């Protein structure tokens, strides 16, 4: 296990480093010199050169990369060419918001999917079980942003029950914080919940066909008890894998939902960066998102190994 963990950790670090190269190279392709852009059309070549030196963009790309990536390791994302503000604090502020959004959405998805998926599997021959499958199919087919727009329309605009958007920090008012996040959580969670329901259903169905469930019943357990005690943990192994993949999906799905609900998260920062051609900012946000996905994969792999003694 320890050996596995070390190996997996090494892969994580290596992947992140390679991802860093990719992101840096990609951003280097962006047309336009940051110094020229910052100074405008009629800037003198001397001024541009001076600013280049100040930004450090006059150095060879390899040096720039090492400087940038080395900074990342210490949490230093550099200083924006456009806003002259340090990027690290901006990203960490936004990361917290996005993390809350994504984890909440995930919680909603799990809260929906586990009971519904299990129910649909247990009752897969009943009309009700089939109905859940059908509804989950439809849920998958609805884009998250459309779900968001509809939720706002119904709960905020028509019912006036919840705010239509915005984000209130938890420190300002825990109640408002919760209210401001309910709809975004739902719009992320409902759709992902539908996807997850199908996986839970199929995982539980698979488990229900397993011999050890019959063994458990032969021991004297009822079918529900057998499923509960022996089935769910086994079914959770494939579900955890999907959950990890979904967390990555949600992280990106949050970009769109942040737009719908006016939430100042990482996605919002990314789109701002693109619109304002804030090279370093985009680079930083993309790197954080990619690293997050890699980290999630890592955690899922490790969780997988912890859950399944066969892999230890």
């Amino acid at each position, binding site marked *: 296990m320890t050996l596995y963990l070390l190996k997996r950790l090494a892969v994580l670090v290596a992947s992140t480093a390679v991802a860093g190269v990719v992101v840096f190279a990609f951003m280097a392709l962006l047309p336009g010199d940051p110094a020229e852009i910052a100074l405008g*059309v009629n800037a003198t070549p001397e001024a541009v050169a001076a600013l280049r030196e100040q930004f450090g963009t006059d150095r060879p790309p390899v040096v720039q990369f090492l400087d940038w990536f080395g900074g990342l390791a210490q949490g230093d994302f550099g200083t924006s060419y456009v806003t002259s503000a340090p990027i690290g604090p901006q990203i960490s502020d936004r990361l917290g918001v996005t993390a809350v959004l994504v984890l909440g959405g995930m919680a909603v998805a799990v809260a929906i999917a586990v009971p519904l998926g299990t129910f649909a599997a247990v009752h897969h021959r009943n009309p009700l079980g089939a109905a859940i499958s059908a509804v989950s199919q439809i849920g998958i087919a609805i884009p998250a942003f459309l779900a968001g727009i509809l939720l706002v329309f119904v709960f905020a605009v028509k019912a006036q029950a919840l705010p239509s*958007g*915005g984000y209130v920090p938890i420190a300002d008012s825990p109640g408002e914080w919760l209210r*401001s996040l309910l709809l975004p959580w739902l719009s992320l969670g409902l759709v992902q919940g539908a996807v997850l329901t199908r996986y839970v259903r199929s995982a539980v169905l698979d488990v229900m066909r397993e011999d050890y469930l019959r063994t458990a019943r032969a021991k004297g357990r009822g079918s529900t008890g057998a499923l509960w005690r022996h089935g769910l943990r086994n079914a959770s192994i494939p579900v955890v894998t999907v959950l990890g993949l979904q967390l990555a999906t949600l992280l990106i799905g949050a970009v769109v939902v942040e737009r719908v609900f*006016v939430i*100042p998260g990482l996605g*919002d920062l990314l*789109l*701002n960066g693109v619109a304002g*051609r804030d090279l370093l900012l985009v680079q930083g946000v993309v790197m954080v998102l990619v690293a997050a996905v890699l980290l999630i994969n890592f955690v899922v792999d490790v969780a997988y190994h912890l859950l399944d003694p066969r892999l230890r």
Partner: protein
Amino acid sequence: MRRIGIWIATGGLLLATAACGGGSSSGGGGDAGAPKSQTLSVGFVAEPANLDFTSTEGAAIPQALLVNVYEGLVKLDQDGKIVPLLAEKWEVSPDRKTYTFTLHDNVKFSSGAPFTADDVVFSLDRVKADWKLKIKSQLDVVDKVEKKDDTTAVVTLKKPSNGFLYSMATRLGAMFSRTGVSDLANKPVGTGPYTLASWRRGDSIQLAANPSYWGTKPALSSITLKYFKDATAMNNALLTGGIDVISSVQAPESLQQFADPNRFQTVEGTTNGEVVLSMNNGRPPFNDKKARQAVRYAIDHKALLETAWAGRGQLIGSMVPPTDPWYEDRTGDYPYDPAKAKELLGGKTLNVKMRIPNLPYAVASAQVVKSQLAQVGINADIEPLEFPARWLDQVFTKGDYDLSIINHVEPRDMGIFADKSYYFRYDNPEFGKLLASADSGTEQEQTEDLKTAAKLLSDDAAADWLFLFPNLIVAKKGVTGLPKNAISESFDFTALAKQQ
């Protein structure tokens, strides 16, 4: 009146859906609960990148800070007239080269420092020395600024200029404290009725009433400026009570939602924003006047305004808004006439690139323009570019486009056509001469010259003017003091109040 550079186009930022998100809680913070404290929350579309408008382009900063936090010697009123602000009055010498400003007494900066003629000298000198914006060239005409006594400042021009005093009403005339410019990007220090209370990046800026304000104290104790990138999100925020005012409606078809007079009010006025269908005069096919004229004939402006912007706004025929003294109705110059357009094209088919900013009005208008141009044989390929960065780079700076659509929001901006390096690539020396003589001539000469210039632009079909952008404000019932017209750089909060 040489106005060049990025500032003019980034003025479009005012209309950009390019800022960070806003919040939801009504009324913002302030000293809620305290008696007589009133707060108001206003939705905007473009969040400033920082708060230093002396070094950062874009309309978002002066929109929030000018008049409200920073004040100039003069300001523009609702009708576009120049009225006193920090200057009680001013006198112009007979040769129109010397301006003597008499300052209000007892004015203090929010830092506590007194405002005197020394600060006038400091601020105006600083424009030349430290400002990084292209528009600072507007004050190149200033020869020297002197202090006569604490409340008298004298500005001497190199030559008479009609544009000088107008420029003083823009951000260029903002008065800074000699001790308050160390961190302009984060800590603005001005004499205005409001001070910066807090700034939550990506969400909102909060202004609080300045307790030691020299003039009439504002009715509100604080104002929250909330930033929305998405028009629908801003509408929803007003509908659900998240904000009190939408400063500029970006989805005019949605106004029907606010029709209930018991809940909402709509203010509709005019702006300086000419939505221009720019044509690249510097390269084929639109270096040919006939082709440009064909475009102007091919566009049914009335239908365009009706479909693209819900019929809100006004049709104009040249680069002059109706609020300028030299306005003439030029909409009759090129009436909708597709047959004539085809004739001008001589039966040829043109394939052109229409590279537009990805802003709501531009994307909507472009689709109408494309459809109408297709009727006369001009095939326009629409390419939306991220605004501001990519549009500025590709279209504005490199001039790599045939057609574009952008709202030129800055006041009195006909001069941009005089610069042949400007992205229109319009080159008519006669036009330049007219503008130069207008700036140095008498007021009446100025008006006549500019009328002629506007006609020349229209005749030359230097561009096509799709419509004048409307000032559309929606607010909760009971909010008063909303500016009817948006013809200055700032969103003036000073008269804003809320009926109890």
